[in-house]
Structures are given as C-alpha cells and as structure tokens.
C-alpha cells in the first residue's frame, strides 16, 4: 500500500522538483568554497562600524578599495552615538570604529567610567554643514538664488509653507551641530531671527533621524534639510554652501565655534567644534592586524575622501598617545585637543 503510494507520487511534478532540489544541493556541496577560516590568503575579515553619514564613502569608496588589498571588508552604518553605545554595551565588536565626532570617543568610550573600550583615536577628515534641497521643490528657484548668493539663505528658509528638517540632537551630533550653526549665523549676520527659525531644540516638525530626513528630502516630502556636505555629494542633491565662520568645517575658527554649547538628554554638555571624523581600533577588536592595515589605508586615502566631499586634515591623535599602534606613528602628527 505504502509503496504503491510512493510510486504513484513519483511521476508528479512535485517529485521531480524534489529530485531537482536534491541534485542542486549535491552540486552546491561539491562546488561550494571552503568554510571561512580555512586558510585562503584573501579571506581576512575586517569589520568596520562607522558613522551613518559615511555610508556612501565607505561602501563605494574606502571599503571596495581596501578589499582589493586582500581583505574581506564588512561595513556597518550606525548613528555615531548609537554605534558607540553598541560597542560600550558589548553588543558589537567591530575591528575599527569611525565616529563623526571626537567627543563620542571621549565621552562614551574612553576612560574607566566607560570600561576603557577605546584608548586612543586619530582624526581622519573634516566635513561641513550645508543646506541641501530637493531640485523639484516648489521653492527650488529660491534655493538656487540663495546658492548663487543672490538672496540670503535664511530668508529663503523663512518662506511661509517651506519645510526644512534637521538631525535630532538627542541621537545625532549633526543635530546639535545644526543648533550651533544657526546660533553662529545669528551672530555672524547680526540677525536674531535666524536661530528662531528652528523653534525649540527638539522641534517635532523639524527633527528627524538622519536616514529618515534624507528620505524625506529625496522623495520630495520635505523641501530642504541641513546635512553634511559629503552626504549630499553622495546623494547628488543640490546644496547651498555656508561661510566657514558658521559651517563648522574650519579648525581655524575653533574658538569661535566653541562659544556654543548644548546639553544632551543623556548627560554631557557638548561645545561647538569643527566637524571631524575620527578612527580607532576598540580594545575588543577581534582582528587587530587587519584593523591596523585598514586604519593605515584610511589615513592614506586623502585623495579618495576628497572625491566624496570630505576635507583632509592633520591626523592628530587624541587620548593616550602611548597606546597607538607603532604602525600608525608615521601617519599621525600632533595631539588632538578638544
């Protein structure tokens, strides 16, 4: 009885499909590459956890270029603060961590209060704040005029009905940097009404997570947003550049920027400072040799980073300079002072 059932089933399409699947699995087993760690020379994994705004720079630029040197690159984008919390909470053990703010290292990862998760960091590059807009926005003409310096950008942003967004200061350094920028602009242009364009720091009509805001501006649901220049170069959106005195790009204006402060909900007060990206190898990194090779590669990638809208700066070292791997000493110079 049972055997007859099987026989009657054998001719059906289902049985044929099962046969095909078995064959496929057999084939896959034969041609499958050896398991990871089986000793192939190009199979050297490296995981990099980086500030979300760097996604395009890392996944289209640095990552693939580094992979060509014989490593298996794996990147992960997270908000800087969130990424630091992941490392601190032992929820991620990346080989390399790239932050969008030196303070993220000093406040959340360094020192005994943070379990000494990180002991040093090196400055990689700088960026600046710009106002990006959707080219199909009904205010696009006005934005174009502002980009050509024909009308002041803050007057365009004040247009009734115009929607612009910014980062959330609670979870994103860009959020409080935008607050700094508007305050600096108020003083630079002698206009008290510029900071008022933002409303309260956490204004629910303007504040969004990084990716959500980008999606809103790209999809045309928002007219404009405050972003890092390199994010906007990656998305190919038009943008308005701002003077160095207010765009937080230039270390020469550090003391001017530092006049602005903001207290995050999670505690520490932050001061205005140039937008600097830093790199470090956390103490928990599983592949230290690969991590070192990656950091060396990154610090020599000035040309590549410039193509993606970042500016090269001196690779100053923060934290305990004695802890920095000897292989990096030749690529760094000077001490980073917040």
């Amino acid at each position, binding site marked *: 009885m049972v055997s007859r059932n099987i026989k009657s089933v054998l001719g059906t399409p289902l049985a044929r499909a099962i046969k095909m699947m078995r064959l496929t699995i057999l084939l896959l087993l034969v041609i499958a590459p050896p398991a990871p760690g089986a000793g192939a020379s190009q199979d050297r994994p490296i995981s990099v956890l980086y500030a979300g705004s760097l996604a395009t720079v890392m996944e289209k630029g640095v990552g693939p270029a580094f992979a060509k040197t014989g490593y298996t690159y794996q990147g992960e984008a997270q908000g800087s603060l969130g990424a630091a919390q992941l490392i601190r909470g032992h929820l991620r053990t990346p080989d390399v961590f790239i932050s969008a703010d030196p303070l993220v290292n000093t406040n959340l990862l360094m020192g005994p209060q943070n379990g000494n998760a990180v002991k040093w960091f090196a400055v990689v590059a700088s960026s600046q704040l710009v106002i990006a807009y959707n080219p199909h926005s009904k205010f696009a003409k006005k934005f174009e005029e502002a980009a050509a310096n024909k009308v002041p950008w803050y007057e365009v942003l004040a247009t009734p009905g115009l*929607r612009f967004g910014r980062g959330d200061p609670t979870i994103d350094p860009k959020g409080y940097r935008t607050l700094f920028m508007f305050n600096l602009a108020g003083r630079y242009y002698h206009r008290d009404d510029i900071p008022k364009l933002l409303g309260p720091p956490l204004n629910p009509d303007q504040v969004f997570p990084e990716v959500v805001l980008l999606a809103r501006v790209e999809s045309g649901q928002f007219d404009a947003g405050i972003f890092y220049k390199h994010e906007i170069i990656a998305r190919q959106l038009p943008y308005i550049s701002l003077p160095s005195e207010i765009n937080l790009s230039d270390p020469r204006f550090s003391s001017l920027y530092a006049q602005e402060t903001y207290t*995050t909900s999670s505690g520490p007060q932050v001061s205005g400072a140039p937008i600097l990206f830093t790199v470090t190898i956390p103490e928990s990194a599983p592949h230290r040799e690969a991590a070192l090779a990656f950091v060396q590669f990154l610090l020599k990638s000035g040309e590549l980073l410039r193509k993606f809208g970042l500016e090269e700066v001196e690779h100053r070292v923060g934290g305990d300079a004695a802890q920095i791997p000897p292989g990096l000493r030749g690529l760094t110079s000077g001490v980073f002072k917040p």
Partner: protein
Amino acid sequence: MSRSLKPTFLVFGLLGSFLLIDLVLPIASLFLDANWGGWLEALKQVEAQQALVISLEASAISVMIMLLLGVPLGYLLARADLPLKRLWISLVFLPMVVPDLAAGILLLKTFGPYGIIGQPLDARNIALTNNLAGIVLAQLFVAAPFVVVSSLAGFAAVDPKLEMAAATLGDSRWHIFRRIALPLAWPGIAAGLTLAWIRAMGEFGSTLIVAYNPHSLPVYMWVKFEAEGLSGALPAAFCLVALATCAVVASMLFSRLTGFADVVTPFGKAATVEN
C-alpha cells in the same frame, strides 16, 4: 488519544527545540537579568509615559478602524461572489510581508505633504504624517491584514447551511451577517483583533519614517537605545513584551471559544484543525 511519545514526535520535538532557542531564549533573557525597580522607575519618566499614551491612543484608534472597515471586508471576501477573489485576498495579505522600511517609504510617498493623498489635504492644513494620524496609518498598514484574514477565516468557517436556511426563511443579508455569521465568527475575529492590536503597538520600522514625532513607545525605545544604550532601551522593551504576552494570552482564550482554528491562505482554505 494516548500521550505516549512516538519516535517521530521525539525527533520533531528535538528539531523544534532548536527553533525555540531562537524564539524563546531572547525573550527569556529579558527576565533573567531583569531590573524591575529600575525599569518601573524609568517608565515613570514623563517622556516614557507620553510615548506609552501615544501608542495606546494610536492603537485604540487603529483597532476601531480595523473593526469598522476590516471585519466587513473579511465577510465580503468570505461570502460574496467576487470576481478575482484570490487576487483581492492576496492584496490584503501583501502588507504583512512587505518589509517595514519599504512600507514606511511608500506610506510617506502617499500620505506625505507632497504625496498623492497628502498634498490635497495639506492644502487644507490637514497633515497625515509626523502626528497621531501618521502613527495610525503605519499601524493600519501592518496590522489590519490580521483582522481581515482572521475575519475571513472566521466567516468562512461558519456552516453555509445555516446562512442558507436563514436566507430561505427570508432573512436579509444584513440580518444573516448580524444574527448568524458575526456571533459565530466573533471569537476568531476577536483573537485577530487582539493580535492586530499588539502588532500595531509594536510597529516601529515604518512609523519611524512616517511619524518620528510624537514618539510612540517603540520609537521612544529606539531613541533611548541610540542615546543611552541598552539600559535606556530595556524598560520600554520590557513594557512592550509584557503587553505582547497579555495579548497572546487573550488571543488564545478567544480562539479557544471557537473550538477550532482555521488556516486560510491566499490559495484557499488549507486545513481545519480540530482543537
């Protein structure tokens, strides 16, 4: 039926227990290193309370809408002689399997201030994103299919002979629905509504995009996670898991009332399982 373990069941049990490592252990871990006092204290914070209230309000509105619009749709799909019936059922199923993030982007494109539906409303100063309405829209997208599908299953399980008998006695369709179909299918629908409610409460991915503000409880949990790490997020996680546990228990009680569970797929009724 004898309760002796057959070899087949032993093997299946062994296989299933591997899956349970993934399903049960993570939730159990929440209670293993629980910090009850600290969590309750954290949930007393104003922002946490606000987020909880927002989530409860939005999900209550969602459940009402699902009840008023989803249950009739379930009956229609179960009983009406619709052309392309399987297509309609599949379309209702689809949102259940669309990734949250994609759902959020698509909802934003539709209901955002410059969206197909959002724009004409925006001209009249009605906003559908970044407010309670946005949260409800996101919740409906992911949770309403539960209600439609459970209603469909519930109504389909009602013996058609009962409805036919009532029809021959001259009862109108509305009367048949109201007096026979709805009371008999109700436990299954209630179970579906309960699951839909908790799915709505927990909706995160598309809500983040459609309505970051005001923070609902899952968005608040994420913000705390980003800003303060694990310790910041766990109180809200605990709250949501506790509510989910209640919802699952309630849903189980409702389905017990029916005495059987139906499995209906877009490809037809797959099985009726005696309880």
